[in-house]
């Protein structure tokens, strides 16, 4: 079936897409502000400040590049992006080029194992068996109604914007897998529904890294860490800050709580 290619403005395009893709529109009707296209990609590339990126990338307000969606769909190539930031930043672009290399790495693994990216690459290092994890993503996580301001905020942002900061992805994935003990595949599929940069390789293999099936230990975090890199914006508004925040603990305490059966120390720090 041939589709329309001429639209007078964005609203007209969006109205047309709602009619043309009714199943998608019924499931998740949100439209992101992020624009697709080569022009938008080049504009994003022109704004990158490699040195600022390296210094602030872990912070939710950091100078991140927002290039991933364009790279995922080949609107820009990784080679072009690499050249552009090296020309601008020289040695100061090392951190950013290393992050680009992660994408190349995930792609190479995907080329090698194909749909194997949906299976555990290695055994879990959490002390839990694969069958100890729930198959399905709980509704309260997807709907953003857990009562945890941070996780609910991330779920809303994912649904509304199709984007999450990398650190927020890591926290949310760790919460899903380790605190709620849900299979990483359920979380990975949820992200792919929504992320504009949703790429099976980068996404799934990163979930496996958090889960510990593609890493020597599981990734987890505590409240101090989240508070630090968010300026506490979620914590200040959270009813559970003084009333059962599941992230408020030392790494040693969390290890005992989350991975009581782990044979070896799996501490992050």
């Amino acid at each position, binding site marked *: 079936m041939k589709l329309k290619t001429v639209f007078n403005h964005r609203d007209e395009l969006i109205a047309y897409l709602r009619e043309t*893709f009714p199943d998608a529109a019924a499931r998740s009707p949100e439209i992101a502000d992020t624009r697709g296209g080569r022009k938008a990609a080049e504009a994003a590339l022109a704004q990158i400040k490699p040195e600022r990126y390296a210094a602030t990338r872990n912070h939710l307000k950091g100078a991140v590049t927002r290039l991933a969606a364009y790279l995922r769909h080949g609107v820009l190539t990784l080679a072009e992006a690499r050249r552009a930031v090296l020309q601008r930043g020289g040695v100061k672009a090392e951190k950013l080029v290393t992050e680009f290399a992660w994408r190349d790495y995930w*792609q190479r693994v995907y080329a090698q194992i194909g749909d194997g990216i949906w299976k555990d690459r290695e055994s879990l290092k959490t002390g839990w068996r694969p069958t100890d994890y729930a198959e399905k993503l709980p509704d309260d996580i997807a709907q953003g109604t857990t009562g945890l301001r941070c996780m609910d905020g991330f779920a809303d942002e994912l649904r509304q914007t199709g984007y999450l900061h990398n650190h927020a992805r890591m926290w949310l994935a760790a919460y899903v897998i380790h605190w709620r003990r849900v299979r990483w595949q359920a979380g990975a599929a949820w992200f792919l529904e929504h992320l*504009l940069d949703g790429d099976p390789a980068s996404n799934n293999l990163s979930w496996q890294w958090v889960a510990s099936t593609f890493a020597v230990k599981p990734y987890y975090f505590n409240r101090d860490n989240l508070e630090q890199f968010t300026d506490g914006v979620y914590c200040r508004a959270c009813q559970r800050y003084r009333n059962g925040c599941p992230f408020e603990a030392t790494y040693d305490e969390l290890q005992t709580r989350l991975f009581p059966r782990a044979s070896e120390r799996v501490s992050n720090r």
Partner: protein
Amino acid sequence: MKDVLIWIHGDCLNPHSPALLAHPDAPRVFVFDEEVLAHYRLSLKRIAFMYECLLEIPRVEIRKGQVVAELAEAAREQGCTRIVTVESIAPRFAQLRAKLQREHNLPVEVLPLEPFAELSQTEQARIELKRFSRYWNPIKAKALALNQSFDW
């Protein structure tokens, strides 16, 4: 050449794709793969993003349905006897490509994309994928150098 149909796929929504540069006058078609949309439950915002990327590709024809059947129909309509596209590592890409040849006698030529960093065969051979560090350490110096001409 009037016999070429360019197949644009979701891994290369780029107006400067090697396929478009090699055949600037050829008809070009993208198909929203209904099986993929349903399987991944892709949200409307993901579709809209891709659609906006496509609209910046001059003279693109956008379709939805079964990819192989839609491409075969487009080829028939345009009088094309072969397809040119760019590489994708997605397993589905290889399946669709084989099916185009098998069921519709449409050969698919796949053009390479520029790699992240130009590596010699020796460098390629040193890469291991077990962990990121084993991939990155052997190629790091090359990838961080702007001028790649020091490969002697």
